[in-house]
């Protein structure tokens, strides 16, 4: 069972260059931390795909063990775990997130 959900996650993060596991959807986030990451990605003009862990208990537990990370949201870029809300926020503020997107060849708006 765990293997099925791990495989699903692996396929998702391989296929979507920017993949966000969150509570709710990009349009209707259901948690403040998830909402903040959506806001940052949207602000940066980064195209991203989301998965709603509230609709899927197996995914909600699965992603936590997959990433060895206890909380949601979780951001993946090019199959690599970037972090949760605190790390994404800190990286956005320091400009590291933009550097990461540029390095990984992800489309984004550049700050003037």
């Amino acid at each position, binding site marked *: 069972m765990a293997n099925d959900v791990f495989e699903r996650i692996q396929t998702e993060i391989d296929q979507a260059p920017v993949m966000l596991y969150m509570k709710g959807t990009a349009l209707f986030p259901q948690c403040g931390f998830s909402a903040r990451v959506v806001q940052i990605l949207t602000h940066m003009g980064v195209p991203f795909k989301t998965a709603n862990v509230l609709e899927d208990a197996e995914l909600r537990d699965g992603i936590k063990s997959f990433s060895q990370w206890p909380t949601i949201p979780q951001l993946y870029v090019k199959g690599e775990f*970037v972090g949760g809300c605190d790390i994404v926020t800190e990286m956005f503020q320091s400009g590291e997130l933009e550097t990461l997107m540029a390095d990984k060849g992800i489309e984004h708006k550049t700050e003037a």
Partner: protein
Amino acid sequence: MAMAANEIEALIKAAIPDARVTVEDLAGDGDHYAATVVSETFRGIPRVKQHQIVYAALRGRMGGELHALALQTSAPES
């Protein structure tokens, strides 16, 4: 369900003895905290790993008993 701030601090210090830990109860409800952890352990390792070390110190409570712990980790400035 809630955890006391000194309990959080004690768990982190037990796992990372040299850590300088400050824990702030953000909402006064024993459920929303912000923690700053400064330790030599963190030098040169990625943030995700730094946070994972702290989560490991909290032994499964993060995401369960502890709903919200805003975390900032760093190595001491040299």
